[in-house]
């Protein structure tokens, strides 16, 4: 962190020096009014929380665990598919997590173990948990948000991001 701060300071000093040279001869015209509002600053990317969703030892193949991410109002599932899938983590590359709010109208979807799909009772949309949450058929204009996972040395599984906007929010992190 301290290194970053220095770099910002360094850049700022260079800017002021250059500005002073360029502004020579135009007196004090560039001085800002004292009550000028400061621009808000922020990161380009959302800061997602790294939340523990469970441990490898808790997961059984094709038995989803209810989770919430990035906060308690955003339900999802954590799932061990049983064979490696794209985006899957863990020793078998088969652990995935998805939002279960249908990205069509936000109805709560249920998991159908028979074909490893998420199904929306509202308007009959379906998403494939083995294919990155691809919409198999339905009305949503995106695939179901998939949570980015990592696993630490103890086997704890953390979520730390999402692939798509979660239904019902202008920002995944509210």
């Amino acid at each position: 962190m301290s290194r970053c701060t220095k770099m910002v300071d360094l850049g700022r000093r260079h800017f002021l020096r250059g500005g002073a040279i360029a502004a020579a001869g135009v007196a004090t015209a560039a001085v800002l009014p004292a009550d000028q509002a400061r621009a808000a600053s922020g990161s380009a990317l959302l800061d997602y929380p790294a939340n523990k969703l469970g441990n490898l030892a808790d997961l059984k193949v094709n038995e989803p665990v209810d989770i919430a991410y990035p906060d308690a109002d955003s339900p999802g599932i954590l799932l061990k598919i049983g064979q490696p899938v794209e985006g899957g983590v863990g020793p078998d590359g088969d652990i995935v997590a998805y939002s279960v709010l249908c990205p069509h109208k936000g109805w709560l979807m249920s998991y159908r173990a028979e074909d490893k799909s998420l199904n929306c009772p509202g308007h009959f949309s379906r998403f494939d948990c083995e294919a990155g949450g691809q919409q198999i058929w339905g009305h949503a204009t995106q695939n179901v948000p998939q949570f980015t996972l990592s696993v630490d040395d103890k086997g704890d599984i953390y979520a730390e991001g999402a692939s798509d906007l979660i239904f019902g929010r202008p920002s995944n992190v509210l």
Partner: protein
Amino acid sequence: MAYKRQIDRLPIPPKDAKVHNVTCHYCIVGCGYKAYTWPRNKQGTLTDNAFGINLGEQQAADGTWIAPSMYNIVRQDGKDVHLAVVPDHDCVVNSGLGSVRGARMAEARPSYVTGTQQQRLSDPLMWRNGVWQPTSWDDALDLVARVTARVVTQGSEDDLVVSMFDHGGSAGGYENTWATGKLYFESMKVKNCRIHNRPAYNSEVHSTRDMGVDELNYAYKDYELTDTIFMIGANSLETQTNLFLNHMVPGLRNGARFVSVDPRRTVTINAAEEVAGKENVLHLAINEGTDMVLFNALFTHIVDNGWVDKDFIANSTFQGGEAAPLDDGHPAGLGSLDYALDACRTSLADAAETCGVSEADIAKAAEWIAKPKEDGSRRKCVTAYEKGIIWGNDNYRTIGALVNIALATGNIGREGGGVCRLGGHQEGYYRPSDAHVGRPAEYVDQLLIRGGGKIHHIWACDHHKTTLNASQFKRVHKRRADMVKEAMDAAAGGSRDQLVDAIVGAVNGGGLFVVDVDIIHSQIGHNAHVILPACEANEMNLTSMNGERRLRLSEKYMDPYGNSMPDCLIAAGIAQNMERVLREMCNEAYADQFKGYDWQTEEDAFMDGYNKGNPEVTYERLRAMGNNGVQEPVSGYADGKLIGTERLYTDGQFTRHGREDKKALFCAAEWRGWQAAGKAREKENHKYWINNVRANIFWQNQFLDQDIDFIQDRFPYPFIEMNSEDMAEEGIGAGDLIEISNGNGATQGMAYPTDTAKRGHVAMVFGSPAGSQGNVVSPGVNELVLPDYKHTWGNIRKIANATPRVKAVSFKSKEYKSA
């Protein structure tokens, strides 16, 4: 890996964002949306925003949400602005529901900033020096007018072939159908013309009109009031999505039963079962092309059991035997119920044998449609049909046979009734008389294939993807267009007169000069010599009506892309240039016919056309009526509102045929097997029936979806649903590229294993840019030049293993199943 948008937050529209009424321009239903636009450097907050709700809270199901596909940055009055196009909760059509198509309207806009839809045409293009070169409107329209004027004055207007939309939404609407109609039917009398989806200029539903019944006669709310929904050759969950979800589903929840006639099990049938229970859904999976026999058996059974509406028949239908005989323009006689029944009479047993369904199921359908309830009250039934029979076997008689049932049971003009097309596009037809076209109309594709016509003006039609006999059509069209390209190349560097001489020489030698008006460089546009860039709804103001005749003004919220223009103003430009060129040619009388196009805006075109016939209706009044609009016909204006008509024929007076007695006619729909030439033989000689189907994900907008990654990720190739045992027999795996071929040509797609597909049946998605189903459809049509796209048979072979693009594709069943 499935396509990830990698978007996790979006700008919030501020409270003072501009709000525009939008009717989705893709399908017939016309869902209401609100478009919010606001300056690039402004935003709302979680608590202070255009929606007036706290966006800092997780919204509940059905709540307001801007999906990434509903957002873009577009140009408005020359400035880049934020755009959000969000389903309108207050619109009675969709009540806040968005479809997978309409909810992508914002994403499907051209944007210089986000890079969406960079395939859109921005400038006129002219074939010059071996490529399409951008040029000015003046230059492009001058060449169009000079060649057109020279050819039609040296020969006749019959040398000009026109393909033009006649619908609402997208490219159509009252403004644009009027302008093109005025150009070709008033200034000129072009008879060699055709519509976007069929090879002639004709109705898709002649028989219902000849029987006196307009094909859009109900209100969507009738589905909520009915006892039975009788759906034929339609898959509404996919192709009229929010009509199904917002009106049919509530009807089923109210206790309505559902009868579906379709050789294929669709997601609509599955959803109906989920909602109503299997015991209230009857799927008559008939043999392909036998619908008429089923309808005739239902009609016979209903009449024989006395389940008819005697008063309605006595008061509203013709009584004296034959009213209109069978002749060249009328493929069946029309008259009284008794007259028709003589020709239609079919036993349940005979129908069961021909249709391949049980007698008991046909009898059950008849009961669900017509048998009075236990208390003796009449049963209400709404009948809805679409391409399964419109593009089916013996269009005229089959649709007539269906309308017979609705007439016999008095289910027209009443709550919970109606016998209606479900529709594809919205409607928006307002044109001068087309009587000079004649009936039967010219089969324009065959005219072009025979070498007829010298100029082809094309308005938002891409026959390469959507016509029948497309393999041959494409070959001939290209060959003839190339003759003109070569002549133009040879004339490079010469004067305009020398260029026109070269083109006219080429078309007199068998070539075809092609002018294509479109929003993208379409496939048929690759044969064009002049390409004129048009714009879509919301890049202009556009009026259309939906499947319950609901008229709305969909408002302009952004500039047309680049130098593109509304079709109506392009038509005006052609007319003005025709007038100028004809005066130069000293043909003053003909030049005078092209006066009257001094329009500055699309509203001017609306006032010149639709408003003249409907003086109550103006843009200002429609704007005030918002997304609920008014149901046509409009009968007046009072208390600041346009007064509409909820459903037609409530007075029992039938007018669509123009008969003075205002009596509806029954159709003598006598079965004659496969009607179109060559169908029976084709079936005999090929292994698979190639059904031609739609998919909700890109129904009505595949031309835009070819440039949208979310869609291309799901279906990189057109899907061909196929039974797994058939696939195994042919050595085909999921996702393999396969070829369908027959004597008409060949096409290709991606095998999609489908457990509900019958052996020997495959279902290929229609209209794909990556594989045209029309390539294998024979040129066979009915007497009135209605194509039978649905009945094609072919053989199938594997041409390649699933490609790397297919690795991410799910091949699971499309049917929702509760867990």
